């Protein structure tokens, strides 16, 4: 399986993917301080600048932006391969389709997980450095803040990687449509904001949990149904 995952990486247009990831990282690393200093500066009811613990709460939804990277990976690894018919090359190898799909899923999971984790680290460092220069957040980060940040970064990276699979079965394998895949990712990234706009209060952790389960279900269907819907 490790070899198959490595081959998925080698088949990609690596420069394009790396360039895309760098753009996500650069944009996201400045967003926490931008939101604190500009967007929420005049909003009395939210104060993410109160402490590092509060700032962390802002950082989590921002990292959901990497769901777009997940959609892009579904596009490269599944949809483009179906459209360019390179998927047929894989199906001609003495490897079952289920195993091939599983390798692709594992590759996307690893890619999104690692990119989100690195994004957390970069955002954390950038926020800290900017805070030291411009005094954006009150006080200094404590060891507790650091530990909470580390744990939430890892857990949330897993969550982002799982949620990114939500469009996989329907739009990636069945319909093989890029735009719906991206729209679905945008919708998922903004889901908590939509519920806020509709004055629906949802427990964020529970929401992410449910979306992660939908992602797992989508992976299950993708693997289980590839022989029925996966023909070239």
């Amino acid at each position, binding site marked *: 399986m490790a*070899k198959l995952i490595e*081959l998925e990486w*080698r*088949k990609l*247009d690596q420069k394009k993917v790396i360039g895309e990831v760098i753009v996500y990282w650069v944009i996201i690393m400045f967003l926490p301080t931008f939101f604190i200093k500009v967007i929420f500066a005049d909003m009395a009811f939210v104060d993410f600048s109160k402490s590092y613990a509060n700032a962390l709460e802002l950082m989590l939804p921002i990292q959901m932006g990497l769901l777009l990277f997940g959609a892009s990976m579904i596009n490269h690894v599944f949809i483009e391969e179906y459209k*360019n*018919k*390179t998927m*047929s*090359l*894989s*199906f*001609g*190898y*003495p*490897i*079952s*389709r*289920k195993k091939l799909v599983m390798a692709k899923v594992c590759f996307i999971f690893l890619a999104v997980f690692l990119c989100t984790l690195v994004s957390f680290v970069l955002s954390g460092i950038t926020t800290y450095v900017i805070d030291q220069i411009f005094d954006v957040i009150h006080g200094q980060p404590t060891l507790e803040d650091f530990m909470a940040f580390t744990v939430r970064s890892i857990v949330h990276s897993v969550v982002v990687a799982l949620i990114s699979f939500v469009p996989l079965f329907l739009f990636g394998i069945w319909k093989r449509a890029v735009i719906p895949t991206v729209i679905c990712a945008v919708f998922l990234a903004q889901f908590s904001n939509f519920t806020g706009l509709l004055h629906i209060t949802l427990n964020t952790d529970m929401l992410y949990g449910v979306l992660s389960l939908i992602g797992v279900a989508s992976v299950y269907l993708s693997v289980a149904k590839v*022989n029925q819907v996966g*023909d*070239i």
Partner: protein
Amino acid sequence: MNEVIRTHELTKTVKGKTITSNVNLTVKKGETYGLLGPNGAGKTTIMKMLTGLIIPTSGEIMLFGKKLTESAKDGLKRVGSIIEYPIFFEHLTAMENLRIHCEYLGFYDRKAISQALDMVNLHGIDDKKVKDFSLGMKQRLGIVRAMITKPELIVLDEPTNGLDPIGIKDMRELIRMLNKEYGITFLLSSHILGEIEQMADRIGMIQQGKLVNEVALADIQKLRTDYIELVTSNVQKTVYLLEHDLQISNIKIVKDTRIRIYDMKRSTSDISKTLISNDIEIEEIQKHTSTLEDYFYHQIQGGGKVG
């Protein structure tokens, strides 16, 4: 084990439409088998099923004596193929494409790559991206990929498509050489009769998704008949003269003015002389040999088997 491929009642249905129906095909070890049929007959679909690209709706495929299923695709390790047209990761170089292919098949002989490239005269393309290749180069690179892992069976769908005349000749020679010198079994498809005639040992005729007939080319050649065809406005008198004056018995009136003489004991000039001396006006007289085209036409029209 003498059979490389054997299918039993192989059927593929897509959205209620039957693409191939109950195909029972046999390809023997070491032969070049040609699938012949008009466009849309189902040749590519059969090849796709044989190479694991699509899953049959029903029926069975035996590859090297073992049943080919989604969970048992080991036989495909011994198969190289190009179906429809050669597909590559266009943003990668030829070398990267070939290496990835080899790794999927667990084949790690780097020397084999350069040997195969030499065999099809593809030089200096190591770092060139496939998107910059011409169709002919892609076709040759596809052949390299198909044979690089030293397969025992190579499946080629319309192998000369997109090649220039020299490329077509090279391709034919390469297939012959690989078949004769390396004993590789070939399954080829084409809708061009002459193409198949020049390469195949045995032919399977496909029409509307069905295997109409399987026949060795040598057998067709035995069945080949020579005949003289003449065109005249006075068919009745001509037939009388042919039968009574020239003692020709095997005659067929094809159309109102066209007569075919299968009895070749009289030459064209003998027939002409006799007819002209009896005031028969000959519009046309020519000696013919029935070709694979005639045989194929007869099979498709009649749909029957040849005894």
